[in-house]
Each structure stands twice: as C-alpha cells, then as structure tokens.
C-alpha cells in the first residue's frame, strides 16, 4: 500500500509496491491521453532546486492528466531561496499550499528532511548522487513492459556507476527482483561503490565488474546506459581516453541477443550513437514516454490509493 507514503529511496519500496505501481501504470497507459478526474481538486507542488527537464515536466503532465493542479517553486535563483530562505521553511510553506510535494535537490538526504517537515507526502525526484526512486520505477516498468518480466534477466549497467544517481537507484531497485546476473560495466575510475556491492552480496545477486561492453553483450537481456561526465575526471585526457570505449554503436552490438533492450535515463550526449536509435533494441524514448504513466500511477496510489 502506497497511500499517504513518502517515496524517498527505492529501498523503502517492496517488490509488491513495485508491482502495484506497474499495474496502475498499465492502466494509465491503457487510458491513453484522456484527461482524468481522479485527482480533481488536488494540488502538487514541484520544488526543483536543481535543473531538470524530463522529471519536472513529466510529473507536471502526470498531475494535469489526472485532473489535479500544479504549483511550481520556479527557478531557485528567482524565488525566495535567492533571498536566503532555507529548505525547511520553503518546504513548510509548500506543505501548507499543496497536497503532495515533489522535490529535487543537490544535497543527499534533502528529500528525507523535507519529508520530516512536511505533513503531506513527499516524492524524491532526485537528491545527491544515489537516489532517484521514480526514475528506477520507470526503468523497471520499461523492462517489464518489453520483456514481460524482470526475474531471470541478465542486465548490464554501463557508464558512471559511482556518481550516477539513476544508475545507483536502478541497481538498488533490481535487488527487489530475482535477477539472473548483473554486469557492471565501467571504467575503473567510475566503478560501483563498495556499499552497492555490499547490497548486491547481501541480497544474493550475482554480479561481475567488467570494463568492456563487448565482453558481455551477447549475454544481456537489458543494457542500461548512462552518461560519463567529463567533470568526474581530474585529468581531461583521461576522460578522452575512456570515453570512446563507452559509446554504444551498432558495431558494439553486433553479438547482441535479439531480445536485448537498451535503456538510458536521458539526456544523452554522445554515449549512444544516433544510428542505434533505429535499431529494435533502442527503447530509451519509450522509457522517457513511460515517465508520465508511471508517475500518474504513483501520484494516484499515494493520494487516493
């Protein structure tokens, strides 16, 4: 049951919670682009202290489709934050205006603090470098949609496994299912953190760290790609050196299974060659599209059950 709950990290969600969201998202997808009345009279506040396009817009679209209304904190440098208002006071104010708060913040734990202050439910739309639970719900929904299941799949996660909040949340979410094997594909500098490995070991999920996609591509049912950011490398020449090895091209996929699907939380820069877009593997635009029905499902389940 998700009614009235905060969504702060995927680890707070049970497998049943995931499945409840998937079922509701299927229903939302079936209803298409109709304007619904389910959340009529409800208000959602979006407070993005960090830039976001997809997440903010898909949350707002989801609320509007459900018949609810949206208020937005606006750009932080133009709002009262610029005058030095702290996060706690901002949240207290939003909590008195809206029925649910969606927050994104640079600092880790900001959503938890917001949830402690607000009486209404808080959804974490990304804080720090670890948590982005709604993205993980969308990622897993996309896998379920195209593969029909999540259990028993072999999944490769490629790119920045250290600082990427989407990859971290994705891997944590996978631990709720019976994954056959996870391949962690990254340059040595951006390997997954120790605590993530500990989590995988604790949950009994088989995983292997590799440096090249080509070594494992033929085994994968899902390839989750993410952006390698230049600023993560102290030495720009090091970045140039590794970058090429993590670009997905039709050539790097030549041994892929027919049923492989490629996901990416987007935005992408150049980590997926545009020629891949027309291959049947490419599902990242569907994944972005599912952002709306999955978030509709979540808002509905939290606000009215």
């Amino acid at each position, binding site marked *: 049951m998700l009614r009235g709950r905060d969504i702060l990290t995927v680890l707070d969600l049970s497998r049943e919670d995931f499945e409840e969201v998937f079922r509701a998202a299927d229903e939302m997808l079936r209803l298409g682009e109709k304007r619904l009345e389910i959340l009529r009279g409800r208000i959602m506040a979006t407070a993005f202290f960090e830039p976001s396009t997809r997440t903010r817009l898909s949350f707002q679209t989801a609320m509007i489709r459900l018949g609810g209304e949206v208020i937005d904190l606006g750009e932080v440098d133009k709002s009262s934050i610029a005058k*030095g208002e*702290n996060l706690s006071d901002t949240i207290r104010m939003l909590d008195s205006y809206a029925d649910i708060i969606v927050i994104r913040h640079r*600092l*880790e734990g900001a959503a938890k*603090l917001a949830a402690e202050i607000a009486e209404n439910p808080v959804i974490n739309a990304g*804080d*720090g470098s670890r948590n982005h639970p709604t993205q993980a719900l969308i990622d897993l929904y996309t896998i379920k949609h195209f593969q029909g299941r999540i259990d028993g799949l072999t999944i490769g996660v490629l790119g920045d496994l250290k600082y990427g909040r989407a990859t971290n949340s994705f891997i944590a979410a996978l631990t709720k299912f019976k994954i056959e094997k996870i391949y962690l594909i990254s340059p040595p500098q951006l390997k997954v953190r120790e*605590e993530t490995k500990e989590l995988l070991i604790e949950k009994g999920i088989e995983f292997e760290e590799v440096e090249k996609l080509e070594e494992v591509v033929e085994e994968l049912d899902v390839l989750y790609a993410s952006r390698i950011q230049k600023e993560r490398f102290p030495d720009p020449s090091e970045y140039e050196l590794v970058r090429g090895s993590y670009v997905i091209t039709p050539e790097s996929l030549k041994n892929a299974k027919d049923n492989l699907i490629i996901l990416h939380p987007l935005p992408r820069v150049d980590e997926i060659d545009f020629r891949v877009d027309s291959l049947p593997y490419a599902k990242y635009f569907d994944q972005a599209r599912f952002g709306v029905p999955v978030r509709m499902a979540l808002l509905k389940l939290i606000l009215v059950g």
Partner: protein
Amino acid sequence: MSKKELILRKIKDGTIIDHIPAGQALNLLKLMGITGREGFTVALVMNVESKKLGKKDIIKVEGLELKPEDTDKVALIAPMATINVVRNYEVVEKRKAVPPKIVEGVLKCRNPNCITNKPNEPIKSRFRTICVNPPKLICEYCNYVMTYEDIVKQLISEK
C-alpha cells in the same frame, strides 16, 4: 609505588573507566577534556592483561564525575567499557558504555554533500549504529558510513 598499587589504590571521589580497548585511553582522556593541567589526580594504565579483551586500558580520575550525557560519547570510543562513579570510596553507580542505537547531534556527517551539513537548516545529524564493536554508524540522511577511525578522530578533535 608499585604498578599494582597505582591501579588498585582506591579513589575517594571520581570516575573509573575500565575495559577500555587497548590504546584508546589517551583518546578518552582527551574526550573528557583532561589535559593534565586541570589538577585532577589521574591514573592511567595501558595494555594490561584482561580476561575479556586480551589487553585493555584503565583510567581513574580523582575529583571528576563523568556526566551521564557523556556516556554515549565514551561508548563510541570505548564500546563496552565500564564506567564506575565513586563517591566517598564507594562505587555509587556502574554504567556500561554501550553505543546507543541512534546517535543524534553528537557527530558531524563526513559527507560534505549531506543535507545535515547545510548551514541554516534546523536539522541535527542522526546516525544509526550498524556495528557496536568497533562502532560503525550510518547517516540516516545520506547513508554515509562512519568508521570507528572517523568517529574517534572527530570526537577528539572537537576538544
């Protein structure tokens, strides 16, 4: 005075901390704010045989009563130590220094990107104890894991 007398001599009023992990007595004195210039009579033994710990340290301080609120801090440096409060040659209180399940407001999270380090927010740091001995804490906000070394370093650098 023989070594044994130093350890065994009774104190009139003060605190005896026994079963300190070997090598942590000086850190504990620092935590208690004892530099030696305060005038308290202090007896300190390090690396003596212990049935329970193999080796241990012991501290005796004459004239200073460890406040109950400092027990948690002592526990974070010397988990499972025994604190004896002595008044008029009698042990009037015996406390076991067990790290609390939740450590609130005592330590600063080492993650610079943790919300608890943001100035101007009404928020206290809060850690959950994931290992008692040696103490290991996890930040309830950002999940950063504070090791025993992190904890000791921070507690004594505050002084």
